[in-house]
């Protein structure tokens, strides 16, 4: 199984915390704060898991949905977890329709997310 995880969030602290928490657990963590950056990484690197927020440029954006569609097309083997602070019901059902593995609301204990990652990546293997 690929232990490489792409974390996409516009909050730098969150990316920092993921790296700090997941790397000691044996994962390789890449981070992106913007849609284009994330898509570029997805097209070059084979990730076992994508953890993405839905809004990357303010309260009205929805780049996350775009990213999910891109990942589903270009990287079908990548499991996807949405982790959002402001997802509406409509966005949630759209994300679920596009085949995400989990839809979670912030904040979440990183321990819980690590357990979820382990679970999803094992199933991919």
């Amino acid at each position: 199984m690929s232990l490489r995880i792409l974390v996409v969030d516009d909050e730098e602290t969150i990316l920092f915390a993921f790296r700090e928490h997941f790397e000691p657990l044996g994962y390789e963590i890449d981070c992106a704060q913007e849609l284009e950056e994330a898509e570029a990484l997805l097209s070059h690197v084979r990730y076992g898991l994508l953890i993405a927020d839905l809004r990357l440029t303010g309260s009205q954006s929805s780049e996350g949905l775009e990213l999910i569609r891109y990942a589903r097309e270009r990287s079908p083997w990548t499991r996807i977890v949405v982790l959002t602070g402001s997802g509406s019901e409509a966005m949630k059902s759209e994300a679920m329709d596009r085949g995400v593995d989990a839809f979670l609301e912030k904040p979440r204990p990183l321990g819980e997310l690590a357990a979820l990652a382990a679970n999803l990546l094992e199933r991919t293997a």
Partner: protein
Amino acid sequence: MHFRDTAESALEDSEERYRAVVAALEEGIVIHEADGTVVSCNASACRIFGLTEEEVLGRTWLDPRWCLVREGGAPFPLEEHPATVTLRTGEPRSQVVLGLDRPDGGRRWISINSRPLLRPGDTTPYAAVLSFSDITSRREAEEERGRIEERQDKLQQLISRSALEWRLTFDALGSPLLLLELDGRIIRLNEAARALAGVRFEDAVHQPLAALGAEPPWPAVQALAERVAANAESATAQAHERQGRTWDISVNPVAGPGGERWLVVVLLDITDVVKLQESLRRSETMSAMGALVAGVAHEVRNPLFGISATLDAFESRFKNRSEYRRYFDVLKERVHRLSILMQQLLDYGKPLRLEPSAESPEEVMRAAAAACAPIAAGARVEIVEEPVTDLPSLEMDRNRVVQVFQNLLENAIQHSPPGSRVTFRAEGAGERVRFAVEDSGTGFRAEDLDRIFEPFFTRRRGGTGLGLSIVQRIVEQHGGEVTAANRPAGGAVMSVLLPLRPGQVPSRPGF
């Protein structure tokens, strides 16, 4: 000779005088011979008949040129004319009224007396004297008076009718109305006003306003009436009554029939309007607050997650460094509380959409009690479930109702002394099921009972004050009711009434 001359002259004198008297009489005098022929008439008679003396003399009353009518307009039969009757029968006639149409077209009304002239020993008159007076103007005056009286009667009827109509209308009005003298003395008050004051008409009329009592809204009415009496300008005020009704009072100065000034007091029950306005204001405030709070909560969640995630990372890196432990614990506990607050704010700000299914009350109670078991064990409190058997199944959003019961049980546990019990009951209540969570803690402060469902109202350190607000919203969304009370035996009881199926309650955000 001399004597005869003297006697004749005396007789002539006497006749002359007699003629002069008759000629000067206002009354008409006509003398008939036995066959009815007029042999003599005075000037008044001619004037009344509208004929010359020549035209009158020699006529009888059977002459078809006479046009006579009775009162009421029917023709007067000529053979019944008083002169004719008296000549025929020898009987006098008195005050026979008839109308006489004159050649000039005018009708005169005359009142006739007839007297027979009898020679001593005779029963058949040799002549008859008719005396009559023109009563036309008297009659017209009488008729006019009759018409006036009739009009007055009609007017009187109209007035009494209007008065009755007005009184019935006045009393039928649902709003209390009073008519006052300028000094506040009651002239009249309608049924609704009497009912509001609890007085009888006769106990209130002519009494000062104070006779209606010192309970609201009467003092406000009195104050307003005094003000309007002083300023002579209409004024309005509002008053709250003990039973919870709100009255809009208006006092208007009016002019009485004699120009004196009166006051009209109208009280309108605007309780429902005020309630509606308040609820509208609350719901406007709430939805504005909801948008604000949800916006803030969203913005807070990202940095909050940044903090909690960094804390998690920090802890996992340094979990072996026991000297950091107390810092983690403090930070994690505070961040956890903040996370719960954010979650509750979002929950409360979001419209609630129920996903109902048929559920067994016992099973839902068991699920909630099981979820609270760890907290109960930690507080050394026992949860005792006491559902009545055979409760009907309820249409409910299971997760939401479990959340409600869990919240109530957690509250009860937090307020229970160690070693005590929290009782969780359920029983049928008509078309509903009543659930009750009872504890043996200190109960609610009396002044808090009205406020505990308000958002952010809490007396528990670290409480968000949103728990019971969310409970209330979920229960109301189900068409149910939640109430708080103190048990007579001590401790609090929270009751939830849920209908067999949720009513049609529109979804709205909590704010």
